[in-house]
């Protein structure tokens, strides 16, 4: 028998407990990424020279280096430099948030650029100031357009969240690793982990489709 789920069965709670961590982690990283990404976007579309360059450098660094390297830099290297140590979970949320912000800011910038120029002109001709125009006219329309991309980003984040097992966060992946260590079986726990991620992604996709339909109702 190649597959032996019996031996593994009693350790399955390790994976199940990990689901909660994985979800919570993805959620907070996404929120952090969204907030930070929005700020970055505002800088990028502001047209102010030096801030724009800085924002672009930021994006370029976080998109140009591997996530795992960033994670190790923040978790292992930061305490060495600052003397202040953070928990694995904090480091992971921080890294993933900073990383997601870079990607999300590019998605949003594209979204904002794709809002018809006439929308801004109409707002301007009514005397609507820049901030109000961005928040009530341009941004809501951009958000609708980039929603599918944001969902993709969230799905990507959920899947790469398995990397945090590398620094000891007890997520789904880490649960599977622990089962392997206990039972000396690899196939079953990782298969279970894969299935778990798949189900989570499917749920997220379902949820996103609903959200998208709701947002698009006015079209």
């Amino acid at each position: 028998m190649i597959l032996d789920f019996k031996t593994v069965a009693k350790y399955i709670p390790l994976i199940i407990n990990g689901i909660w961590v994985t979800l919570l982690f993805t959620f907070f990283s996404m929120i952090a990424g969204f907030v930070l990404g929005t700020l970055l976007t505002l800088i990028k579309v502001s047209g102010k020279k030096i801030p724009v360059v800085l924002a672009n450098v930021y994006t370029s660094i976080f998109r140009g280096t591997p996530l795992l390297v960033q994670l190790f830099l923040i978790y292992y290297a930061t305490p060495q430099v600052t003397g202040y140590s953070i928990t694995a979970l904090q480091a992971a949320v921080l890294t993933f948030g900073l990383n997601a912000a870079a990607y999300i800011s590019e998605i949003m910038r594209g979204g904002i650029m794709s809002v018809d120029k006439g929308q801004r002109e109409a707002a301007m001709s009514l005397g609507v100031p820049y901030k109000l125009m961005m928040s009530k006219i341009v941004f809501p329309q951009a958000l609708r357009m980039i929603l599918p991309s944001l969902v993709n980003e969230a799905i990507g984040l959920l899947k790469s969240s398995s990397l945090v097992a590398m620094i000891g966060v007890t997520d789904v992946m880490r649960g599977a690793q622990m089962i392997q260590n206990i039972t000396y079986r690899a196939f079953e726990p990782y298969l279970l982990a894969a299935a778990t991620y798949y189900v989570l992604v499917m749920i997220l996709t379902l949820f996103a489709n609903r959200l998208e339909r709701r947002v698009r109702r006015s079209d």
Partner: protein
Amino acid sequence: MIKVENLYKNFGKLEVLKEINLNISKGEVVSIIGPSGSGKSTLLRCLNLLETPSKGKIFIKDEEITKPNIDIMKIRQNVGMVFQHFNLFPHMTVIDNMTFAPVRVKKMKYEDAYEKSMKLLEQVGLKEKENVFPGKLSGGQKQRVAIARALAMEPEIMLFDEPTSALDPEMIKEVLMVIQDLAQTGITMALVTHEMGFARNVCDRICFLDGGYIIEDTIPEKFFNNPKSDRAKEFLDKVL
């Protein structure tokens, strides 16, 4: 009401407007016509600084809007604009489109803005579309809402940038009727149009623009029956 002095505008190497001088008095309805690419829209868009003039001065109600540090947002509240492609906000209902700026910018009370907007909607014949999203309206209806939206700010000046050019032929009339009614209310109007019949019958003055200059500036009767310049004759031969 509107005064343009030696206006010059270029986009890079392309000189669109050269030496434009124009005076529009209170209550006047002026049509800007000319061949495509002559700078009509650019001239109109300079009047509320959607385009920044390269040189020259523009005055709105004796206030120079081309000097630095002018609060253009304040000026724009008094200068309504209607666009070729309507530019309604697609994520807002008709009534929200109309009340947004009066409430958020002019700080009108919502009830007052609502009442005003409903009155305007009735005037343009779209009272029943109050809670409809723009996507559900025809082109002509969209443009009528856009006109009503601009009027909801109670501007003293209205600018129309080819308001019927994007419409199907059967919808042009309903929009022109609305503009014509508006012209009779004594509001100051400048409009860029290709509707020669409309310009002739409704406007007080015609400005014929070609190659970046105002070549003729006269009453419609004279312009259409007896144009002075060859270029205006040529243009009229083509369009009439």
